[in-house]
């Protein structure tokens, strides 16, 4: 990852060679898949199939499986949040687990200590974590790349310890479990687990649409501009600080909503495990990458894949349970090797090869770097 100095615009004159470090960039990192999106028709078909499957699933599967799918849903939301920040805006965070935790505990505390019903707590979690994200995003302006990743890591490590110090739950430990009755289905005819899944799915769809809309619009182009060419972006009037901080806040809010939903699905907010929220942060990152960073479907696909993988590598070899993490880790490495652009990237490549899309049309599909194209050039010529 390249480091960028805030003083990057200073003239090179007067800077002695020893003052300047050669910063490893590993060539030109293409962080984000430069793969053409498939034809509109294909995308619609895929979308319909996926939607149908997602809607039918809870009525077909057992409650246990529905719970697993619901976990994939909230994981997808958090991964999308991270995707906005890291995939589209280039700020690497391995601390989103902390925002997730804040969301989870907010919901749990409001329900247990203040008697709230569950659904309104989601909104509070979103706002609270959004504010928290804002507070983190501000100093994050000064901290770049690798350092940002490490500072955010610190957040994820810190959160359970803070929770343990200040939260007294069941039995005096930092563990909150709202009772099952709190999450009863609000719709007659729907079982509790089906309701939980569909509610989460609905929220996920809304948030994904919001993200899609965001990325397609001015703000999205600004985010991507900041990611790709920060200096150039600032010279054409993109508000660097504003964009970065706003993205941080929004992505934190997504993670907070995910945490809130996890309270409904897992029925627990747990602060007793010191590495749990670090593990969550990694999960979001993994889901984003194996799904396909800087894509819209990527986080959802990655989340589902991750959940299935985790489930199927647990207790895989009878008598050698210690090996489960190794199998899981090995699977992750394998996936990254086979699909270095994530599943979505891989599928797109496949479809592109099968389809008749030309390279020029593919280039047109990539969002333009500059905010407004000059009037003499048609939009298709921008790169």
């Amino acid at each position, binding site marked *: 990852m390249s480091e960028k100095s805030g003083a990057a615009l200073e003239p090179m004159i007067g800077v002695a060679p020893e003052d300047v470090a050669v910063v490893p960039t590993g060539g030109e990192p293409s962080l984000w898949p430069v793969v053409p999106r498939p034809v509109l028709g294909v995308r619609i078909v895929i979308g319909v199939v996926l939607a149908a499957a997602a809607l039918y699933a809870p009525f077909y599967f057992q409650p246990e499986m529905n719970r697993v799918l619901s976990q994939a849903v909230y994981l997808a939301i958090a991964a999308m949040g991270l995707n906005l920040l890291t995939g589209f805006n280039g700020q690497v965070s391995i601390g989103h687990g902390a925002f997730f935790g804040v969301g989870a505990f907010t919901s749990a505390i409001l329900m247990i200590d203040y008697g709230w019903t569950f659904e309104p707590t989601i909104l509070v979690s979103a706002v609270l974590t959004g504010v928290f994200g804002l507070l983190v995003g501000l100093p994050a302006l000064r901290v770049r790349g690798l350092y940002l990743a490490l500072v955010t890591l610190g957040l994820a490590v810190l959160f359970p310890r803070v929770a343990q110090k200040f939260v007294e739950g069941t039995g005096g430990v930092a563990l909150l479990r709202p009772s099952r009755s709190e999450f009863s289905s609000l719709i007659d005819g729907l079982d509790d687990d089906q309701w939980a899944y569909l509610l989460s799915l609905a929220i996920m769809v809304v948030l994904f649409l919001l993200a899609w809309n965001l990325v397609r619009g001015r703000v999205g182009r600004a985010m991507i501009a900041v990611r790709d060419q920060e200096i150039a972006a600032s010279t054409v009037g993109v508000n660097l600080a504003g964009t970065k901080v706003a993205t941080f806040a929004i992505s934190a809010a997504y993670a907070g909503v995910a945490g809130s939903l996890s309270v409904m699905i897992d029925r627990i907010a747990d602060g007793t495990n010191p590495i749990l929220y670090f593990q969550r942060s990694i999960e979001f990152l993994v889901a984003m990458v194996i799904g396909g960073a800087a894509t819209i479907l990527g986080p959802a696909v990655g989340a589902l894949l991750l959940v299935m993988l985790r489930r199927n590598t647990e207790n895989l070899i009878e008598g050698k349970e210690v090996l489960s993490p190794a199998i899981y880790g090995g699977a992750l490495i394998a996936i990254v090797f086979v699909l*270095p652009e994530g599943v979505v990237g891989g599928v797109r490549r496949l479809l592109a090869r099968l389809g008749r899309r030309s390279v020029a049309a593919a280039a047109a599909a990539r969002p333009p770097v500059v905010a407004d194209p000059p009037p003499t050039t048609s939009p298709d010529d921008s790169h």
Partner: protein
Amino acid sequence: MQLFIEQVLNGIGNGVVYGSVALALVLVFRTTGVLNFAQGEMALFSTYISWKLTTTGMPVVGAIAISMAIAFIAGAATERTLIRPMEGRSPLNVVIITLGLFLGLNSLAQLIFGVDPQQMPTPFPEGSVSFIGDARIQKETIGLIVVLLLECLALWFLLNRTTLGLKLRAVAGNPDSARLHGIRAGSMLMLGWGMSAAIGALAGSLVAAERTGFDSSLMQTILVYALASAALGGFASIWGAVIAGLVVGIADALTIQYVDALDGIEVVLPLALILVVLVVMPNGLFGKRTVERV
């Protein structure tokens, strides 16, 4: 005052540990541009190898030396097979791979070497020497400090005063450009990973020897502190990592002693420290100012 000095010594004892691991992290970063999250677990696995060798009757120094050699080869092989294929692709892919290694190595170590805590014999003499007043410093700690200093000197010399070091840095900066200059980038990258794996093996073995016992959790907390130290020192500097390690270690010990409000969350201190320092000095305490060309 006595107590203060003793706690500072405790802090130094842990600080050299953090510094040693931070050294390996900085080395691999400076020579290959990758932050290796699996550094700790690679060191753990090597530590188990050292330990296993000592159980066969081999003297400690020999065991560690062999372990370092194995680590060197394994590190180089890892770079070639797992990291190199990702060159030019998203750096996040490499992060995922190092995470996979993190999980895999810890788990494999448990499988091969067992889950029970073990004791690693120390190559240094037992006992302590007088320091200031009644405060004593363990000979082991002094040994660790000496080893660390020698490592820093050797690495600094290698990276800054030899042609090989120049090649390593050139490849890290821009592999394609380096290749155009006739430098075998691949070999340099493998060398970088190999060296840092060996350094990690040394650090891990000495840390385990210094501790009362060790198990598969050895590197987990240390890694967080080591990452913090590396960040604090600015990833560009070898000496920076070590000094930052000492700062983190001492700060931690003093917090445990004097700041009761942070009982249980002492880890907040190195993190707050990094944040404050980085906000003021975005390239770390010892980092170099980087310039980006538009």
